[in-house]
């Protein structure tokens, strides 16, 4: 990671004081990054965390952000808890990660059994302190993987692997204001937090308590220039009636398949912005970014190793090898994260068509219709092409004849949603005709239901019943 040789976030921020006007904004408050040069949000001494394995468990993103900036480079290991971490898994997490200190904005009693770990509370404000930072060491970053309902899986990163995709060039660009629909305590959001800090910009944090329209208005009021989210986040933004409240230069989609419909909708909404879709995961790191406005990945990305990332397709799925992948899972019971050649299997299935690779779904998410496979995502991509469809969810329904059959739920665009029942019947027929033209018969939904909304998981992806 030659471009990011900072040993810690504080190191990377050491010039922050010389650059006024850099902020982290939350719904409630704001913190100037310069305040952290001679200040602390931690109650007590940072020295108490030196060499420890520190669990960062917070109610608010801002308190986590401030804690990360201070603790990185001091702690031996930091464990960043996602907002939806189930409290019942906490003892397992603490044991697996050998936690001996907890930094939190909760009251100690609310955190539960500390099991002898040192408790340090952290605030959403910075108070001046005279203490010098002292010597630094690289800290191991432990992140939680997304999308499992069982016990959480933790992976090991370093600041180097996390920041590997952030180029120095962005430091030179003018006043960059980043924002993201993601929570920064998950990989996708953490990337944006690091980009804002290391790249010399500011950051507008999202909030789970805030509506999409309010968030967009607030991001707009801070003149956001770069903003990221999942395709589901963006569909919600386009439905919110507040998409015009921001005028970004750069819009990025990741975390789910970006189909042509959502790319085109964003292009129409933000004609001057670069619309990019990217692949990143907690395990595989930031893989690549596609900026040509088209869905899918140019096959040329798989030749050579651009930016130190080697991509390949093996047994149908995308494999990534780079310095940005996580190193290993935490906990002995987990399988190796990297294969013998150092690749991470993303589990995302790719298909090559006309010189581009397209994601067709997850390896585990396949619907089996009488022995024939269907990836829900490829059907959703066809449904989403209809101009009245905002988003869709294709799922399996048990069937006595074929074992399972494909059904779809769709959400209509707000301006076209209120329609008479017979119009909706005609719409369903049109969608089915589109599906029949584009897909094999077993992939065409047997039934389509129009629903007011679809559940989106805390990580911003359409909730899949079997995922």
């Amino acid at each position, binding site marked *: 990671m030659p471009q990011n040789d900072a040993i810690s976030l504080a190191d990377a921020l050491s010039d922050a004081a010389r650059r006024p006007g850099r902020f982290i904004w939350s719904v409630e408050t704001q913190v100037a990054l310069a305040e952290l040069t001679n200040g602390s949000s931690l109650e007590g001494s940072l020295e108490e965390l030196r060499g420890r394995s520190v669990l960062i468990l917070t109610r608010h993103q801002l308190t986590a952000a401030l804690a990360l900036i201070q603790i990185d480079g001091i702690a031996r290991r930091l464990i960043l808890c996602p907002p939806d971490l189930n409290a019942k898994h906490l003892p397992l997490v603490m044991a697996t990660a050998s936690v001996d200190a907890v930094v939190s904005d909760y009251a100690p009693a609310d955190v539960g059994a500390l099991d002898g770990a040192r408790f340090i509370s952290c605030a959403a404000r910075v108070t001046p302190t005279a203490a010098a930072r002292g010597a630094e060491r690289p800290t191991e970053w432990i992140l939680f993987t997304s999308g499992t309902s069982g016990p959480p899986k933790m992976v090991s990163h370093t600041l180097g692997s996390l920041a590997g995709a952030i180029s120095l060039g962005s430091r030179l660009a003018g006043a960059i204001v980043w924002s993201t629909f993601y929570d920064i305590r998950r990989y996708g959001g953490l990337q944006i937090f690091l980009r804002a800090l290391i790249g010399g910009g500011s950051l507008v944090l999202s909030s789970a308590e805030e509506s999409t329209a309010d968030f967009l208005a607030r991001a707009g009021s801070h003149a956001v220039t770069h903003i990221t989210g999942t395709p589901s986040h963006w569909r919600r933004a386009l439905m919110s009636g507040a998409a015009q409240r921001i005028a970004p230069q750069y819009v990025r989609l990741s975390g789910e398949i970006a189909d042509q419909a959502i790319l085109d909708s964003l292009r129409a909404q933000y004609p001057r912005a670069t619309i990019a879709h990217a692949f990143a995961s907690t395990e595989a790191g930031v893989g690549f970014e596609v900026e040509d406005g088209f869905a899918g990945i140019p096959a040329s990305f798989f030749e050579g190793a651009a930016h130190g990332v080697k991509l390949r397709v093996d047994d149908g799925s995308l494999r990534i090898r780079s310095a940005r992948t996580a190193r290993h899972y935490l906990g002995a019971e987990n399988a190796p994260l990297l294969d013998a050649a150092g690749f991470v299997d993303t589990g995302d299935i790719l298909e090559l068509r006309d010189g581009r690779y397209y994601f067709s779904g997850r390896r585990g998410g396949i619907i089996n219709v*009488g022995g024939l496979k269907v990836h829900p995502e490829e059907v959703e991509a066809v449904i989403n092409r209809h101009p009245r469809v905002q988003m869709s969810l294709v799922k399996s329904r048990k069937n*006595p004849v074929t074992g399972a059959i494909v059904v779809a739920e769709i959400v209509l665009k707000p301006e076209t949603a209120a329609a008479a029942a017979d119009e909706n019947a005609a719409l369903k027929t049109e969608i089915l005709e589109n599906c029949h033209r584009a897909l094999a018969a077993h992939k065409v939904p*047997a039934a389509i239901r129009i629903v007011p909304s679809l559940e989106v998981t805390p990580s911003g992806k359409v909730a899949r019943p079997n995922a």
Partner: protein
Amino acid sequence: MPVSVRSTILSQFEQVAREQNRKLAPLSDDLVLMDSGLDSLCFAIVVARLEDSLGFDPFGATEDARFPVTLGDFIAFYEDAAK
């Protein structure tokens, strides 16, 4: 007057055959389903649609449902479940 189970089933057979470009045999109670011109995917779709329009799935209601052989069996199976 409520639409009968029978007519709902018959119209689904016709609609699915049309959608799947199948030539449907003349529908009569003694028509063997496998000779109707519909394949198993078509039947799967018919059953899924009937669950939506009638609000129940007789196949899901019984543990070891035998698949009906004739169209008459099929209709009776649904009519019994509707009682």
